[in-house]
């Protein structure tokens, strides 16, 4: 397996969906290729980073609502016959 194939199989490897035979070749390549090991670490890091950066529970997401949006929603609600 070359670096090119390894990059293609990365997602299935990370999610545990890579068939056993491919996984063997994948892991063998990893033991020999420092660059692909680093790529794997960074690929997994990005998945984690995305999740952590957008965590709804984190307090830093904008909590402020633009005032005109508040007014628009409340005005639209009053005009909404079905609410």
């Amino acid at each position, binding site marked *: 397996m070359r670096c090119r194939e390894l990059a293609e199989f990365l997602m299935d490897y990370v999610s545990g969906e890579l068939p056993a035979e491919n996984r063997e070749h994948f892991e063998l390549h990893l033991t020999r*290729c420092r660059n692909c090991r680093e790529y794997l670490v960074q690929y997994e890091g*990005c998945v984690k980073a995305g999740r*952590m950066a957008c965590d709804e529970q*984190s307090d830093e*997401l*904008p909590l402020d*609502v633009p005032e005109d*949006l508040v007014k628009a929603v409340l005005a639209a609600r009053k005009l909404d016959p079905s609410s």
Partner: protein
Amino acid sequence: MGSATPVDDETGLIAQLRAGDESAYEQVVRTYGGRLLAVTRRILDAEEDARDVVQDAFLNAFRNVDRFEGNSKLSTWLHRIAVNAALMKLRTRKRKPEQSIETLLPSFLDDGHHEERFRSWEEPVDIAMERAETRQLVRAKIDELPESYRTVLVLRDIEGLDTEETAKMLGLTANAAKIRLHRARQALRTLLAPHLAGPASAKVRETPGGKLS
């Protein structure tokens, strides 16, 4: 700007909504509006679309508050309505031609090796993500992804939907959704790496694109 205050008594708030209490509607919009806007902005490029969708989501929620069963949190329920509304908007809107993702994908030499030598990140991602500025950076880079890739990444890696659900919501085959997710993650890595990498060592600089394995 109205700022959010935590809701101590969600059950009470929902009862007020059901009773049509004006102040309860306002409290809900002020409490959850900012977060919903953050969610819809992540899916939609245009600020106007993101705001329209938040408005639609609130109206939809107010209309259907009787159907809110209370086995999830109000915030979770609103969040789901907003995501659905954003995806609906995405489907009905004319698609703009988008920037190609190719330049953000890894490139390979003829012999199948990576062209680039990847510099290790300065610290493990868990540690880096403890800093608000890094989290901000990651959000900004997600926003830079071409829309059709960003949407898949948001639904899969952030909203936590599975491949089938994501594919269905976007009108894609499962395989197409998988390919887009993989490309989106690779592109995000390309965008983040220069900011997270440690200082280049002399050795690395001497051998750009050198064979490594």
